[in-house]
């Protein structure tokens, strides 16, 4: 996702931010019990916060990141940073998530490599990175870890949870796992369950990693890394986040620095060059095992079977929040019909839900790209949720 991270066009930013860490489940009697039944500890959570928590502690908004994101949503770690956080266009003073009004929190997800415990963290049993000894985690486990952090921060109720893609899944999970602790849910470009198509692409990407001879069943941390496999995995993923229209507009069949075909297997087309570049950039910042774990968690996510229920309608019987669901016209990874299924389940439970399909030609990643309509939508939805959830007698 960081390929979209860019300086705000108006230069507005939260400024210098700091990544913080909190560790829990350090004692053997206090381990985190995962959905699989496995026990994990210690667990470190990497997180960042922006804005100020109100004295009433009622203005906290949790941002949930997608597959390749991390806790660094907005701002810069230092003056020399070339790039801000991945959602700089949405999070900051006066933006869609207005840090002058809200206390915005983002944690790196469990199993990934953004500083929160994952397969590249040291296994306390061996002192070496877990590798595949790391237990398989779920979206529910990610949310449980976020919940533990919020307890430490003294936040018992969130004004909002917001996320796109895998982040949207976490937002939905929040509304079911802690129904009385979330007032508003904003689910962007997401789904209640992966289609066979989405699972298929994830599996191809995982196979690319596992077929790399350097992968060595996940124990590569002391030697060469499966960079080729991870780069190919990223290339596959990246294509699914774009669209036919976006690729046509951006590249067409244009050739890369040549007038004719090379009649060899080096780069001919611009789109090939672009994908290789994306792949190479990705391996510098992402761990191949984390890619396996996080995509698996996304594939396992299924609200229609969550907790033994037999339908999404049944699953959302527990929810209490107000919902804003947004899909994008050219998203072929999680097409609009999947958002509509979600909306239908919410409606059938009598829940408050707004839904909009935004016209955008940039595919699944549309939620990451600056879009004033989306920013306004989010700002106004959150403002309403805050107004409706304010206790009587509080200052408006």
């Amino acid at each position, binding site marked *: 996702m960081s390929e979209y991270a860019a300086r705000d066009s108006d230069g507005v930013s939260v400024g210098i931010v700091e990544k913080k860490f909190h560790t829990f489940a350090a004692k053997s009697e206090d381990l985190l019990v995962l959905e699989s039944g496995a026990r994990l500890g210690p667990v470190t959570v990497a997180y960042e916060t922006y804005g100020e928590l109100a004295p009433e502690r009622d203005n906290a908004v949790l941002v949930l990141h997608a597959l390749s994101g991390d806790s660094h949503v907005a701002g810069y770690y230092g003056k020399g940073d070339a790039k801000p956080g991945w959602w700089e266009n949405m999070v900051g003073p006066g933006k869609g998530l207005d840090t002058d009004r809200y206390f915005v929190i983002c944690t790196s997800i469990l199993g990934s490599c953004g500083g929160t415990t994952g397969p590249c963290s040291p296994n306390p049993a061996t002192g070496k990175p877990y590798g595949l000894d790391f237990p398989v985690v779920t979206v529910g486990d990610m949310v449980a870890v976020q919940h533990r952090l919020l307890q430490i921060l003294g936040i018992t109720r969130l004004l909002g949870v917001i996320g796109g893609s895998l982040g949207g899944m976490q937002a939905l999970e929040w509304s079911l796992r802690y129904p009385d602790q979330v007032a508003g849910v904003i689910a962007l470009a997401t789904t209640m369950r992966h289609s066979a198509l989405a699972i298929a692409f994830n599996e191809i990407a995982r196979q690319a990693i596992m077929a790399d001879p350097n992968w060595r069943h996940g124990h590569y941390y002391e030697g060469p890394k499966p960079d080729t496999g991870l780069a190919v995995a990223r290339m596959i993923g990246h294509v699914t986040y774009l669209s036919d229209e976006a690729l046509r507009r951006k590249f067409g069949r244009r050739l890369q620095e040549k007038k004719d075909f090379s009649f060899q297997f080096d780069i001919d087309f611009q789109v090939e060059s672009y994908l290789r570049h994306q792949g190479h950039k990705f391996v510098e910042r992402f761990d191949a095992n984390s890619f396996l774990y996080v995509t698996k968690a996304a594939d396992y996510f299924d609200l229609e079977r969550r907790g033994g229920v037999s339908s999404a309608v049944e699953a959302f019987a527990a929810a209490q929040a107000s919902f804003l669901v947004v899909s994008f016209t050219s998203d072929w990874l999680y097409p609009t019909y999947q958002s509509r299924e979600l909306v239908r389940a919410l409606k059938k439970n009598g829940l408050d839900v707004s839904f909009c399909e935004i016209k955008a030609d940039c595919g699944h990643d549309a939620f990451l790209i600056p879009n*004033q309509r989306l920013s306004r939508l989010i700002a106004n939805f959150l403002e309403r949720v805050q107004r409706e959830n304010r206790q009587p007698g509080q200052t408006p």
Partner: protein
Amino acid sequence: MKAATSDSRPTAGQPGTPAQPMRFDLTVIASWIKPGSKVLDLGCGEGDLLYHLKQSKGVDGTGIEMVEAKVLRGIEKGLTVLQGNITEEVQDYADNTFDYVILSQTLQQVYAPAQLLNTLLQIGRQVVVSFPNFSHWKNRWQICAQGRAPVSKQLPFEWYNTPNIRVISIADFQRFIKKMGWRIRRETAINTDHHDQHGNVVRLLPNLRATYGIFLLEKR
């Protein structure tokens, strides 16, 4: 609505009251709605009626609208709005979910009116329907004297581009409701000015003199 690219930063807290006064038929409809009730507005546009009902009567409202830009405006006003097709969206609600379901100036565009109204009478305790009165004397004049399909302020389309596939008069609608075995709880015929923002109630010869009919229906 301004173009997205030229817009300034999102401004929360400015729901944007309608710059112009509300349409007169909507004012009449609003006067029928009891405070604090639960309302579904079909084809809610930018949500003028719902916004008014929410502000003045504390109504718990939901809107359904097809056009993306209008949906966005509605949500920006702090309303609950779903983008979608009326016929499909109303299928997802349990019986008597709403106190009122409002279908204002849309019936003339509905492919299966009897089926739709039947659904609305299930999901809502009462249904408000308003439509342009096709048998207004000006329309009759155009047909009789000029031999032309009527084009008026209320029906501003030519035969080749009109979305209005149903020709409804107040008299026809009354007959239809009777035939379906439903009950008319309230009805008002109105005559509106050129901008539809002001008008008056027509009591004498409404089928001839009114531009719009407004009905409050329920099941027997």
